[in-house]
Protein backbone atom coordinates (compact mmCIF):
# COMPACT_ATOMS: atom_id res chain seq x y z
CA UNK A 1 0.00 0.00 0.00
CA UNK A 2 1.33 3.38 -0.82
CA UNK A 3 1.90 6.13 1.64
CA UNK A 4 -0.74 8.39 0.16
CA UNK A 5 -3.41 5.75 0.22
CA UNK A 6 -2.76 5.18 3.88
CA UNK A 7 -2.95 8.87 4.58
CA UNK A 8 -6.31 9.37 2.97
CA UNK A 9 -9.05 7.28 4.47
CA UNK A 10 -11.47 9.87 3.09
CA UNK A 11 -10.70 8.75 -0.41
CA UNK A 12 -12.68 5.54 -0.52
CA UNK A 13 -15.71 7.24 1.02
CA UNK A 14 -15.62 9.99 -1.52
CA UNK A 15 -15.44 7.52 -4.34
CA UNK A 16 -18.37 5.55 -3.02
CA UNK A 17 -20.35 8.71 -2.68
CA UNK A 18 -19.67 9.84 -6.20
CA UNK A 19 -20.14 6.49 -7.87
CA UNK A 20 -22.47 4.47 -5.73
CA UNK A 21 -23.35 2.44 -8.80
CA UNK A 22 -19.87 1.13 -9.50
CA UNK A 23 -17.10 -0.63 -7.69
CA UNK A 24 -14.35 1.61 -6.33
CA UNK A 25 -10.68 1.38 -7.21
CA UNK A 26 -8.44 -1.33 -5.76
CA UNK A 27 -7.94 -0.24 -2.13
CA UNK A 28 -4.44 -1.75 -2.05
CA UNK A 29 -3.08 0.98 -4.27
CA UNK A 30 -3.37 4.72 -4.45
CA UNK A 31 -5.89 6.12 -6.93
CA UNK A 32 -4.48 5.41 -10.43
CA UNK A 33 -1.59 3.42 -8.88
CA UNK A 34 1.06 6.13 -8.67
CA UNK A 35 1.81 7.71 -5.30
CA UNK A 36 1.05 11.41 -4.94
CA UNK A 37 4.66 12.55 -4.90
CA UNK A 38 5.26 10.81 -8.22
CA UNK A 39 2.10 12.32 -9.69
CA UNK A 40 3.21 15.80 -8.64
CA UNK A 41 6.59 15.27 -10.27
CA UNK A 42 4.97 14.08 -13.50
CA UNK A 43 2.35 16.83 -13.39
CA UNK A 44 5.04 19.47 -13.13
CA UNK A 45 6.91 17.88 -16.05
CA UNK A 46 3.73 17.93 -18.15
CA UNK A 47 3.17 21.64 -17.46
CA UNK A 48 6.71 22.42 -18.60
CA UNK A 49 6.20 20.21 -21.66
CA UNK A 50 3.08 22.17 -22.58
CA UNK A 51 4.93 25.45 -22.08
CA UNK A 52 7.80 24.32 -24.37
CA UNK A 53 6.01 22.51 -27.22
CA UNK A 54 8.02 19.67 -28.72
CA UNK A 55 10.81 19.82 -26.11
CA UNK A 56 11.48 16.54 -24.32
CA UNK A 57 11.28 17.11 -20.57
CA UNK A 58 13.33 14.56 -18.59
CA UNK A 59 11.30 13.03 -15.77
CA UNK A 60 11.97 10.42 -13.10
CA UNK A 61 10.00 7.66 -14.76
CA UNK A 62 8.92 5.02 -12.27
CA UNK A 63 9.07 1.29 -12.62
CA UNK A 64 5.56 0.25 -13.48
CA UNK A 65 3.97 -3.17 -13.07
CA UNK A 66 4.16 -3.66 -16.84
CA UNK A 67 7.24 -3.97 -19.01
CA UNK A 68 9.19 -1.02 -20.33
CA UNK A 69 8.33 -0.56 -23.98
CA UNK A 70 4.73 -1.62 -23.39
CA UNK A 71 3.32 1.79 -22.62
CA UNK A 72 4.81 2.68 -19.23
CA UNK A 73 5.30 6.32 -20.29
CA UNK A 74 1.77 6.74 -21.56
CA UNK A 75 0.42 4.95 -18.50
CA UNK A 76 2.30 7.29 -16.14
CA UNK A 77 1.02 10.36 -17.98
CA UNK A 78 -2.55 9.06 -17.98
CA UNK A 79 -2.32 8.07 -14.30
CA UNK A 80 -1.16 11.57 -13.42
CA UNK A 81 -3.98 13.43 -15.15
CA UNK A 82 -6.83 10.94 -14.73
CA UNK A 83 -9.74 11.70 -12.41
CA UNK A 84 -12.81 9.74 -11.38
CA UNK A 85 -15.03 11.65 -13.80
CA UNK A 86 -12.89 10.95 -16.83
CA UNK A 87 -13.94 8.54 -19.54
CA UNK A 88 -10.97 6.60 -20.86
CA UNK A 89 -10.37 5.03 -24.25
CA UNK A 90 -7.27 2.93 -24.92
CA UNK A 91 -6.21 1.89 -28.40
CA UNK A 92 -3.27 0.02 -29.86
CA UNK A 93 -2.80 0.00 -33.65
CA UNK A 94 -6.04 1.97 -33.78
CA UNK A 95 -8.05 -0.83 -32.21
CA UNK A 96 -9.67 -1.06 -28.79
CA UNK A 97 -9.50 -4.85 -28.65
CA UNK A 98 -5.78 -5.51 -29.17
CA UNK A 99 -4.26 -7.33 -26.20
CA UNK A 100 -2.11 -4.52 -24.86
CA UNK A 101 -4.94 -2.00 -25.14
CA UNK A 102 -7.18 -4.38 -23.20
CA UNK A 103 -4.49 -4.88 -20.59
CA UNK A 104 -3.89 -1.15 -20.04
CA UNK A 105 -7.63 -0.45 -19.91
CA UNK A 106 -8.01 -3.16 -17.26
CA UNK A 107 -5.19 -1.59 -15.28
CA UNK A 108 -7.04 1.72 -15.02
CA UNK A 109 -10.40 0.13 -14.34
CA UNK A 110 -8.76 -1.73 -11.47
CA UNK A 111 -6.71 1.10 -10.00
CA UNK A 112 -8.97 4.09 -10.72
CA UNK A 113 -12.42 2.53 -11.33
CA UNK A 114 -12.65 4.86 -14.28
CA UNK A 115 -15.37 4.60 -16.90
CA UNK A 116 -14.11 3.37 -20.25
CA UNK A 117 -15.42 3.64 -23.76
CA UNK A 118 -14.59 2.54 -27.28
CA UNK A 119 -16.34 5.55 -28.78
CA UNK A 120 -13.81 8.19 -29.67
CA UNK A 121 -16.07 11.19 -29.06
CA UNK A 122 -17.17 9.95 -25.62
CA UNK A 123 -13.64 9.79 -24.24
CA UNK A 124 -12.10 12.63 -22.25
CA UNK A 125 -8.70 10.91 -22.35
CA UNK A 126 -7.50 8.64 -25.14
CA UNK A 127 -4.31 6.68 -24.63
CA UNK A 128 -2.87 5.41 -27.88
CA UNK A 129 -0.07 3.37 -29.33
CA UNK A 130 0.76 3.94 -33.00
CA UNK A 131 -2.42 5.66 -34.24
CA UNK A 132 -4.46 8.83 -34.01
CA UNK A 133 -8.21 8.16 -34.22
CA UNK A 134 -9.79 8.93 -37.58
CA UNK A 135 -12.52 11.03 -35.98
CA UNK A 136 -11.30 14.59 -35.30
CA UNK A 137 -10.77 15.29 -31.60
CA UNK A 138 -12.20 18.23 -29.68
CA UNK A 139 -10.89 20.81 -27.21
CA UNK A 140 -12.34 18.77 -24.33
CA UNK A 141 -10.15 15.80 -25.07
CA UNK A 142 -6.56 14.83 -24.27
CA UNK A 143 -4.63 12.41 -26.46
CA UNK A 144 -1.84 10.50 -24.65
CA UNK A 145 0.73 8.77 -26.85
CA UNK A 146 2.92 5.87 -25.80
CA UNK A 147 6.41 6.57 -27.06
CA UNK A 148 9.25 4.04 -27.40
CA UNK A 149 12.09 6.34 -28.59
CA UNK A 150 11.27 10.02 -28.07
CA UNK A 151 14.40 11.39 -29.71
CA UNK A 152 13.85 12.03 -33.45
CA UNK A 153 17.62 12.28 -33.96
CA UNK A 154 18.44 9.07 -32.06
CA UNK A 155 19.02 6.89 -35.10
CA UNK A 156 21.24 9.53 -36.64
CA UNK A 157 23.17 10.24 -33.44
CA UNK A 158 22.86 7.70 -30.61
CA UNK A 159 24.34 9.97 -27.93
CA UNK A 160 21.97 11.93 -25.74
CA UNK A 161 24.73 14.45 -24.95
CA UNK A 162 25.02 15.21 -28.68
CA UNK A 163 21.33 15.29 -29.59
CA UNK A 164 20.62 17.59 -26.66
CA UNK A 165 23.13 20.07 -28.09
CA UNK A 166 21.56 19.80 -31.54
CA UNK A 167 18.14 20.68 -30.13
CA UNK A 168 19.61 23.52 -28.10
CA UNK A 169 21.28 25.03 -31.14
CA UNK A 170 18.48 24.13 -33.53
CA UNK A 171 21.08 22.26 -35.56
CA UNK A 172 18.90 19.95 -37.56
CA UNK A 173 21.09 19.62 -40.62
CA UNK A 174 21.64 15.92 -39.92
CA UNK A 175 17.93 15.23 -40.26
CA UNK A 176 17.64 17.11 -43.52
CA UNK A 177 20.69 15.32 -44.89
CA UNK A 178 19.13 11.98 -43.99
CA UNK A 179 15.86 12.83 -45.69
CA UNK A 180 17.68 14.21 -48.70
CA UNK A 181 19.78 11.07 -49.00
CA UNK A 182 16.50 9.15 -49.17
CA UNK A 183 15.45 11.29 -52.10
CA UNK A 184 18.78 10.85 -53.83
CA UNK A 185 18.62 7.07 -53.43
CA UNK A 186 14.92 6.34 -53.79
CA UNK A 187 13.48 9.41 -55.44
CA UNK A 188 11.40 10.18 -52.35
CA UNK A 189 11.60 10.22 -48.57
CA UNK A 190 11.66 6.62 -47.36
CA UNK A 191 10.23 7.23 -43.90
CA UNK A 192 6.71 5.94 -43.43
CA UNK A 193 6.14 6.07 -39.69
CA UNK A 194 7.62 8.10 -36.83
CA UNK A 195 7.97 10.73 -39.54
CA UNK A 196 9.66 13.78 -37.96
CA UNK A 197 7.69 16.97 -37.46
CA UNK A 198 8.57 20.53 -36.53
CA UNK A 199 6.47 21.87 -33.69
CA UNK A 200 5.64 25.55 -33.39
CA UNK A 201 8.46 26.31 -35.86
CA UNK A 202 11.07 25.35 -33.27
CA UNK A 203 11.74 21.80 -32.10
CA UNK A 204 11.92 18.76 -34.30
CA UNK A 205 9.84 16.08 -32.64
CA UNK A 206 9.14 12.39 -33.04
CA UNK A 207 5.39 11.87 -33.31
CA UNK A 208 5.89 8.31 -31.91
CA UNK A 209 5.62 5.44 -34.41
CA UNK A 210 2.32 6.58 -35.85
CA UNK A 211 2.13 6.20 -39.64
CA UNK A 212 2.83 9.44 -41.49
CA UNK A 213 -0.79 9.15 -42.61
CA UNK A 214 -1.65 10.54 -39.15
CA UNK A 215 0.82 13.45 -39.17
CA UNK A 216 -1.57 16.02 -40.68
CA UNK A 217 -4.04 15.30 -37.86
CA UNK A 218 -1.54 16.69 -35.36
CA UNK A 219 -1.46 20.09 -37.05
CA UNK A 220 -3.61 22.58 -35.13
CA UNK A 221 -5.44 19.74 -33.38
CA UNK A 222 -7.96 21.21 -30.91
CA UNK A 223 -7.10 18.54 -28.32
CA UNK A 224 -4.04 18.64 -26.07
CA UNK A 225 -1.47 16.02 -27.12
CA UNK A 226 0.80 14.51 -24.47
CA UNK A 227 3.63 12.07 -25.13
CA UNK A 228 5.12 9.74 -22.51
CA UNK A 229 8.29 7.68 -22.91
CA UNK A 230 8.78 5.62 -19.73
CA UNK A 231 11.97 3.71 -20.46
CA UNK A 232 13.62 6.77 -21.98
CA UNK A 233 12.22 9.00 -19.21
CA UNK A 234 10.87 11.83 -21.33
CA UNK A 235 7.57 13.69 -21.55
CA UNK A 236 6.66 16.11 -24.32
CA UNK A 237 3.55 17.86 -25.52
CA UNK A 238 1.78 19.77 -28.22
CA UNK A 239 -0.74 22.33 -26.95
CA UNK A 240 -4.06 22.67 -28.79
CA UNK A 241 -4.09 24.64 -32.07
CA UNK A 242 -0.32 24.39 -32.50
CA UNK A 243 1.42 24.34 -35.85
CA UNK A 244 2.92 20.91 -36.57
CA UNK A 245 4.63 20.48 -39.94
CA UNK A 246 6.06 17.30 -41.35
CA UNK A 247 9.59 17.91 -42.63
CA UNK A 248 9.88 18.04 -46.39
CA UNK A 249 11.49 19.86 -49.30
CA UNK A 250 9.98 22.29 -51.77
CA UNK A 251 10.56 19.92 -54.66
CA UNK A 252 9.54 16.89 -52.59
CA UNK A 253 6.52 17.91 -50.53
CA UNK A 254 5.29 15.70 -47.70
CA UNK A 255 2.60 13.26 -48.73
CA UNK A 256 0.64 10.61 -46.89
CA UNK A 257 -0.01 6.98 -47.76
CA UNK A 258 -2.89 6.21 -50.07
CA UNK A 259 -4.58 2.96 -50.88
CA UNK A 260 -6.18 1.94 -54.13
CA UNK A 261 -8.61 -0.14 -52.07
CA UNK A 262 -11.29 1.02 -49.69
CA UNK A 263 -12.10 -0.73 -46.40
CA UNK A 264 -13.76 -4.03 -47.23
CA UNK A 265 -15.87 -3.92 -44.08
CA UNK A 266 -17.21 -0.36 -44.02
CA UNK A 267 -16.25 1.00 -47.43
CA UNK A 268 -14.27 3.94 -46.03
CA UNK A 269 -11.98 5.47 -48.62
CA UNK A 270 -9.95 7.89 -46.57
CA UNK A 271 -8.82 5.88 -43.55
CA UNK A 272 -5.61 4.06 -42.70
CA UNK A 273 -6.01 0.45 -43.77
CA UNK A 274 -4.55 -2.73 -42.32
CA UNK A 275 -3.72 -5.46 -44.76
CA UNK A 276 -5.03 -8.84 -43.62
CA UNK A 277 -3.64 -11.98 -45.20
CA UNK A 278 -6.55 -14.35 -45.78
CA UNK A 279 -4.80 -17.43 -47.18
CA UNK A 280 -1.39 -18.65 -48.24
CA UNK A 281 -1.98 -18.04 -51.94
CA UNK A 282 -1.59 -14.28 -51.90
CA UNK A 283 -5.16 -13.57 -50.84
CA UNK A 284 -5.57 -10.45 -48.76
CA UNK A 285 -8.07 -7.83 -47.79
CA UNK A 286 -7.85 -4.29 -46.49
CA UNK A 287 -9.75 -3.10 -43.43
CA UNK A 288 -9.76 0.06 -41.27
CA UNK A 289 -7.16 0.07 -38.54
CA UNK A 290 -9.42 2.31 -36.41
CA UNK A 291 -11.87 -0.30 -35.12
CA UNK A 292 -14.29 2.20 -33.58
CA UNK A 293 -14.49 4.26 -36.75
CA UNK A 294 -15.11 1.13 -38.82
CA UNK A 295 -17.75 -0.32 -36.49
CA UNK A 296 -19.65 2.96 -36.29
CA UNK A 297 -19.67 3.37 -40.04
CA UNK A 298 -21.03 -0.13 -40.48
CA UNK A 299 -23.67 0.41 -37.77
CA UNK A 300 -24.75 3.62 -39.48
CA UNK A 301 -25.07 1.80 -42.79
CA UNK A 302 -27.39 -0.83 -41.34
Amino acid at each position, binding site marked *: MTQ*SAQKNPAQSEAVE*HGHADKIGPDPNYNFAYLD*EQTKRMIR*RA*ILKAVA*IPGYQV*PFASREMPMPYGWGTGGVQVTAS*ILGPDDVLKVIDQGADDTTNAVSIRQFFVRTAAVETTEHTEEASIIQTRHRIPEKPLSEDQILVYQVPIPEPLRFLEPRESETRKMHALGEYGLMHVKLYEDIATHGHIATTYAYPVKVNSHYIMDPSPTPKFDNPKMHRMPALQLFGAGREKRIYAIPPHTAVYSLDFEDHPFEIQQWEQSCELCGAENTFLDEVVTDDRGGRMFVCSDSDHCNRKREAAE
Partner: protein
Amino acid sequence: MIGTDSQTSGRGAEGIAVTNVGFDNPVLQSQAMYRVLLSAMSRPGHIVPCELLLEVPASLAQTTAAAALTLLDFDTPLWLDPAAAAQQALVDYLRFHCGCPIVEAHGHAAFAIITDPCKMPSLDAFPEGSDEYPDKSATLLIQVERLDDSRGVVLRGPGIENKQTIQGKGLPGGFWQQVQENHARFPKGVDIVLCAEDRIAALPRTTQVEV
Protein backbone atom coordinates in the same frame (compact mmCIF):
# COMPACT_ATOMS: atom_id res chain seq x y z
CA MET B 1 -19.93 25.38 -8.19
CA ILE B 2 -19.41 21.84 -7.13
CA GLY B 3 -20.41 21.00 -3.56
CA THR B 4 -17.80 20.00 -1.07
CA ASP B 5 -18.91 16.40 -0.93
CA SER B 6 -19.30 15.77 -4.63
CA GLN B 7 -16.67 14.56 -7.03
CA THR B 8 -14.26 17.04 -8.40
CA SER B 9 -14.21 17.55 -12.07
CA GLY B 10 -12.17 15.60 -14.55
CA ARG B 11 -13.56 16.44 -17.92
CA GLY B 12 -13.63 20.09 -18.81
CA ALA B 13 -11.88 20.91 -15.58
CA GLU B 14 -14.29 23.73 -14.85
CA GLY B 15 -14.61 23.50 -11.11
CA ILE B 16 -13.20 22.29 -7.85
CA ALA B 17 -14.38 22.47 -4.31
CA VAL B 18 -12.44 22.23 -1.13
CA THR B 19 -13.04 22.87 2.55
CA ASN B 20 -10.66 23.20 5.45
CA VAL B 21 -7.17 24.50 5.44
CA GLY B 22 -5.68 21.99 3.07
CA PHE B 23 -7.46 19.69 0.66
CA ASP B 24 -9.69 17.37 2.66
CA ASN B 25 -9.27 14.79 -0.08
CA PRO B 26 -5.77 15.49 -1.39
CA VAL B 27 -5.76 12.71 -3.97
CA LEU B 28 -8.87 13.71 -5.87
CA GLN B 29 -8.86 17.43 -5.24
CA SER B 30 -5.27 17.91 -6.31
CA GLN B 31 -6.12 15.93 -9.44
CA ALA B 32 -9.04 18.25 -10.16
CA MET B 33 -6.97 21.37 -9.50
CA TYR B 34 -4.24 19.97 -11.71
CA ARG B 35 -6.67 19.66 -14.59
CA VAL B 36 -7.61 23.30 -14.04
CA LEU B 37 -3.93 24.23 -14.25
CA LEU B 38 -3.31 22.00 -17.25
CA SER B 39 -6.31 23.42 -19.04
CA ALA B 40 -5.10 26.96 -18.36
CA MET B 41 -1.52 26.24 -19.44
CA SER B 42 -2.78 24.57 -22.63
CA ARG B 43 -4.90 27.59 -23.56
CA PRO B 44 -2.94 30.72 -22.69
CA GLY B 45 -5.04 33.61 -21.50
CA HIS B 46 -8.19 31.53 -21.39
CA ILE B 47 -9.81 31.90 -18.00
CA VAL B 48 -10.57 28.71 -16.12
CA PRO B 49 -12.97 29.18 -13.21
CA CYS B 50 -12.35 27.28 -10.00
CA GLU B 51 -14.51 28.01 -7.02
CA LEU B 52 -12.82 26.85 -3.88
CA LEU B 53 -13.75 26.69 -0.23
CA LEU B 54 -10.31 26.56 1.31
CA GLU B 55 -9.58 28.36 4.54
CA VAL B 56 -6.36 30.08 3.67
CA PRO B 57 -4.16 32.63 5.42
CA ALA B 58 -4.91 36.28 4.73
CA SER B 59 -3.49 37.61 1.46
CA LEU B 60 -3.18 34.15 -0.09
CA ALA B 61 -5.81 33.65 -2.78
CA GLN B 62 -7.80 30.42 -2.82
CA THR B 63 -6.47 29.59 -6.25
CA THR B 64 -2.85 30.28 -5.29
CA ALA B 65 -3.21 28.02 -2.28
CA ALA B 66 -4.82 25.24 -4.33
CA ALA B 67 -2.12 25.49 -7.02
CA ALA B 68 0.57 25.29 -4.32
CA LEU B 69 -1.07 22.29 -2.68
CA THR B 70 -1.23 20.61 -6.08
CA LEU B 71 2.25 21.28 -7.40
CA LEU B 72 4.66 21.89 -4.54
CA ASP B 73 6.58 19.47 -2.35
CA PHE B 74 10.07 18.96 -0.93
CA ASP B 75 11.50 18.90 -4.47
CA THR B 76 10.38 22.43 -5.34
CA PRO B 77 12.21 25.40 -3.83
CA LEU B 78 9.66 28.19 -3.39
CA TRP B 79 10.29 31.92 -3.33
CA LEU B 80 7.79 34.24 -1.65
CA ASP B 81 7.64 37.92 -2.42
CA PRO B 82 8.43 40.15 0.59
CA ALA B 83 4.74 40.87 1.20
CA ALA B 84 4.02 37.15 1.50
CA ALA B 85 7.22 36.27 3.33
CA ALA B 86 6.37 38.83 6.01
CA GLN B 87 3.29 36.87 7.00
CA GLN B 88 4.21 34.02 9.29
CA ALA B 89 0.82 32.34 8.96
CA LEU B 90 1.22 32.18 5.19
CA VAL B 91 4.77 30.80 5.46
CA ASP B 92 3.68 28.22 8.01
CA TYR B 93 0.72 27.20 5.87
CA LEU B 94 2.88 26.47 2.84
CA ARG B 95 5.61 24.79 4.87
CA PHE B 96 3.13 22.57 6.64
CA HIS B 97 0.87 21.63 3.76
CA CYS B 98 3.41 21.46 0.94
CA GLY B 99 6.64 20.65 2.78
CA CYS B 100 8.51 22.79 0.27
CA PRO B 101 11.81 24.50 1.06
CA ILE B 102 11.39 28.28 1.05
CA VAL B 103 14.35 30.06 -0.52
CA GLU B 104 15.59 33.59 0.07
CA ALA B 105 16.83 34.26 -3.44
CA HIS B 106 14.37 34.30 -6.33
CA GLY B 107 17.19 33.12 -8.57
CA HIS B 108 16.97 29.67 -6.90
CA ALA B 109 13.23 29.22 -7.12
CA ALA B 110 11.39 26.50 -9.01
CA PHE B 111 8.17 28.22 -8.03
CA ALA B 112 7.39 31.73 -6.82
CA ILE B 113 4.30 33.12 -5.18
CA ILE B 114 3.77 36.81 -5.76
CA THR B 115 1.06 38.48 -3.73
CA ASP B 116 2.02 42.08 -4.51
CA PRO B 117 2.74 42.10 -8.26
CA CYS B 118 3.38 45.84 -8.36
CA LYS B 119 6.59 45.27 -6.44
CA MET B 120 7.66 42.04 -8.08
CA PRO B 121 11.12 41.54 -9.60
CA SER B 122 11.18 41.57 -13.38
CA LEU B 123 10.40 38.29 -15.09
CA ASP B 124 13.95 37.83 -16.29
CA ALA B 125 15.19 37.80 -12.69
CA PHE B 126 13.80 34.27 -12.22
CA PRO B 127 15.48 31.08 -13.45
CA GLU B 128 14.86 30.80 -17.19
CA GLY B 129 16.50 27.42 -17.79
CA SER B 130 19.22 26.86 -20.35
CA ASP B 131 19.17 26.10 -24.06
CA GLU B 132 19.87 22.46 -23.19
CA TYR B 133 17.39 22.31 -20.30
CA PRO B 134 14.78 25.03 -20.80
CA ASP B 135 12.48 23.14 -18.41
CA LYS B 136 14.75 24.06 -15.48
CA SER B 137 12.92 27.32 -15.21
CA ALA B 138 10.60 28.95 -12.71
CA THR B 139 6.83 28.86 -12.63
CA LEU B 140 5.34 32.04 -11.15
CA LEU B 141 2.02 32.14 -9.35
CA ILE B 142 1.04 35.79 -9.55
CA GLN B 143 -2.02 36.95 -7.65
CA VAL B 144 -4.27 39.49 -9.33
CA GLU B 145 -7.39 41.24 -8.09
CA ARG B 146 -9.47 40.46 -11.15
CA LEU B 147 -9.17 38.57 -14.42
CA ASP B 148 -11.25 39.23 -17.48
CA ASP B 149 -10.72 37.67 -20.89
CA SER B 150 -13.41 39.55 -22.78
CA ARG B 151 -11.03 42.45 -23.45
CA GLY B 152 -7.49 43.65 -22.84
CA VAL B 153 -4.21 42.81 -24.49
CA VAL B 154 -4.22 40.45 -27.44
CA LEU B 155 -2.40 37.15 -27.07
CA ARG B 156 -1.33 34.70 -29.76
CA GLY B 157 0.65 31.48 -29.86
CA PRO B 158 0.32 27.74 -29.31
CA GLY B 159 -2.89 26.88 -27.49
CA ILE B 160 -4.72 29.85 -28.99
CA GLU B 161 -6.81 29.20 -32.07
CA ASN B 162 -6.75 32.76 -33.43
CA LYS B 163 -6.33 35.28 -30.71
CA GLN B 164 -7.16 35.65 -27.05
CA THR B 165 -7.70 38.78 -25.03
CA ILE B 166 -6.99 39.17 -21.35
CA GLN B 167 -6.93 41.84 -18.70
CA GLY B 168 -5.66 41.50 -15.16
CA LYS B 169 -6.25 44.08 -12.47
CA GLY B 170 -3.32 44.60 -10.15
CA LEU B 171 -0.51 43.87 -12.60
CA PRO B 172 2.35 46.37 -12.73
CA GLY B 173 2.88 48.77 -15.60
CA GLY B 174 5.10 47.25 -18.27
CA PHE B 175 4.01 43.74 -17.29
CA TRP B 176 2.76 42.79 -20.76
CA GLN B 177 5.91 44.17 -22.33
CA GLN B 178 7.84 41.83 -20.02
CA VAL B 179 5.64 38.90 -21.03
CA GLN B 180 6.46 39.63 -24.66
CA GLU B 181 10.18 39.81 -23.81
CA ASN B 182 9.80 36.53 -21.92
CA HIS B 183 8.46 35.02 -25.13
CA ALA B 184 11.39 36.41 -27.09
CA ARG B 185 13.75 34.29 -24.97
CA PHE B 186 12.03 31.06 -26.06
CA PRO B 187 12.82 28.21 -25.45
CA LYS B 188 14.13 29.77 -22.25
CA GLY B 189 11.80 31.77 -20.07
CA VAL B 190 9.39 31.55 -17.17
CA ASP B 191 5.81 30.32 -17.12
CA ILE B 192 3.12 32.28 -15.34
CA VAL B 193 -0.16 31.43 -13.69
CA LEU B 194 -2.34 34.45 -12.90
CA CYS B 195 -4.41 33.66 -9.83
CA ALA B 196 -7.58 35.62 -9.07
CA GLU B 197 -9.77 34.59 -6.17
CA ASP B 198 -12.00 32.24 -8.15
CA ARG B 199 -10.33 31.83 -11.52
CA ILE B 200 -6.95 31.41 -13.12
CA ALA B 201 -5.29 31.98 -16.48
CA ALA B 202 -1.82 31.00 -17.60
CA LEU B 203 0.87 32.69 -19.69
CA PRO B 204 3.41 30.06 -20.73
CA ARG B 205 6.54 31.36 -22.42
CA THR B 206 5.04 30.60 -25.83
CA THR B 207 2.56 33.44 -25.38
CA GLN B 208 3.04 36.43 -27.64
CA VAL B 209 1.58 39.76 -26.61
CA GLU B 210 0.49 42.50 -28.97
CA VAL B 211 1.28 45.41 -26.69
